[in-house]
């Protein structure tokens, strides 16, 4: 039987809240059993530019300070352990591009759809758990090898292909067309393919649940009312 719902998940590897949303959504999708998650890597830099969003969390020192602790507390809430922003996060996001890592994700997906989920998770853990870079060829090699992708060199090469650039551009364009202004950005479809909701943020699982006529059961839907 085809899944009852489909959720397109637009994300960038630089976005800490995208990682929280990525884990939260997959946890719920697996618990519900009737929802397909489609991962759509985008490049947030292009989205921010397109919608003229200059009020990003890292761009304001007051917000950046809050982002640091809020991210750590949310990671604990979702049971994801000790995640933290790299010390120079604010500097990194304005000096290093995430676009190459995003292209690696797409190149891997074009090779084999099943690679996208574990590779996305591996990149996020490298950046937000180990606080290592996700910018250089060396970084990509390490992540691809760690995920035991045999022909990783082909993926490194395909990263530069027009086919990969086109898919990234399409993801960015589809997101912006659907009024995306940040990440994570969710497009929720029912079984007829009708768009029933657009949702921003990793802190809206209760709203996503409500749109789909389901109940939000906290960070651990398998054991919703377990003691803290």
């Amino acid at each position: 039987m085809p899944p009852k719902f489909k959720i397109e998940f637009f994300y960038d590897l630089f976005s800490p809240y995208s990682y929280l949303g990525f884990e939260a959504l997959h946890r719920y999708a697996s618990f519900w059993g009737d929802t397909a998650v489609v991962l759509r890597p985008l490049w947030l830099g292009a989205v921010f530019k397109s919608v003229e969003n200059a009020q990003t969390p890292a761009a304001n020192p007051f917000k950046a300070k809050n982002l640091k602790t809020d991210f750590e507390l949310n990671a604990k809430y979702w049971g994801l352990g000790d995640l933290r922003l790299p010390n120079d996060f604010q500097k990194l996001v304005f000096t290093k591009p995430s676009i190459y890592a995003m292209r690696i994700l797409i190149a891997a997906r074009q090779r084999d759809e099943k690679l996208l989920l574990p590779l996305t998770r591996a990149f996020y853990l490298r950046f937000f758990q180990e606080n290592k870079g996700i910018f250089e060829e060396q970084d990509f090699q390490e992540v691809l090898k760690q995920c035991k992708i045999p022909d990783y060199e082909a993926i490194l090469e395909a990263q530069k292909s027009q086919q990969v650039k086109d898919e990234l551009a399409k993801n960015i364009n589809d997101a912006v067309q659907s009024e995306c202004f940040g990440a994570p950005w969710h497009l929720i479809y029912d079984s007829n393919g009708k768009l029933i909701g657009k949702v921003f943020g990793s802190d809206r699982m209760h709203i996503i649940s409500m749109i789909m006529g389901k109940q939000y059961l906290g960070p651990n839907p398998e054991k919703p009312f377990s003691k803290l």
Partner: protein
Amino acid sequence: MNVWDIELKLKPFDLGAIMKASGNRPPARVMAKGLYMMKDLQRNAEFWKMQINSPNEFMEWIRKYNTRDASKLIIASKDKAIPLARELWTQLWSRGQKVFEDADLKEVLKKIGVTNEDQLLKESKDPKIAQELENNTQEAIEQGAFGAPWIVVHKDGEDHYFFGSDRFPLIAQLIGKPFSVPLPSKI
């Protein structure tokens, strides 16, 4: 029914001053964000089973008026602060009516059963009350506030800061209290 045994203290502040000090801009400055925010507000109201109707004249009102007098009234109202704050919000965000001028404020005071509304309104104009509003604002700026609600949790001699109405699960985690949503009972 109170689910958590905590002491709750309302501290009205001047959001305009907070935005200015932190260099923050209202979400509606980004068009896509502004549109989304209205939708998000409605969805969250539905989730919490609250009635929110944004006033049609909202954009005009935020240019023309401020909430300083309403905030000062909450400070002056002492033990009536919570019912008064709720009624002011209901007046503005549910009935879509103003809460900026003396006549607006008197009407709200009557709704919560205050009989000495003129006296209370007079007290709220005391410079000491204005000073308290200013102090609340300065305190929040020093803590790093950049918007509202700004929530400070005092626990074991330490202060923890939270931004947003969507951070109650994190506050529950911090103070070791259960949090199931929506809340088990309406107030």
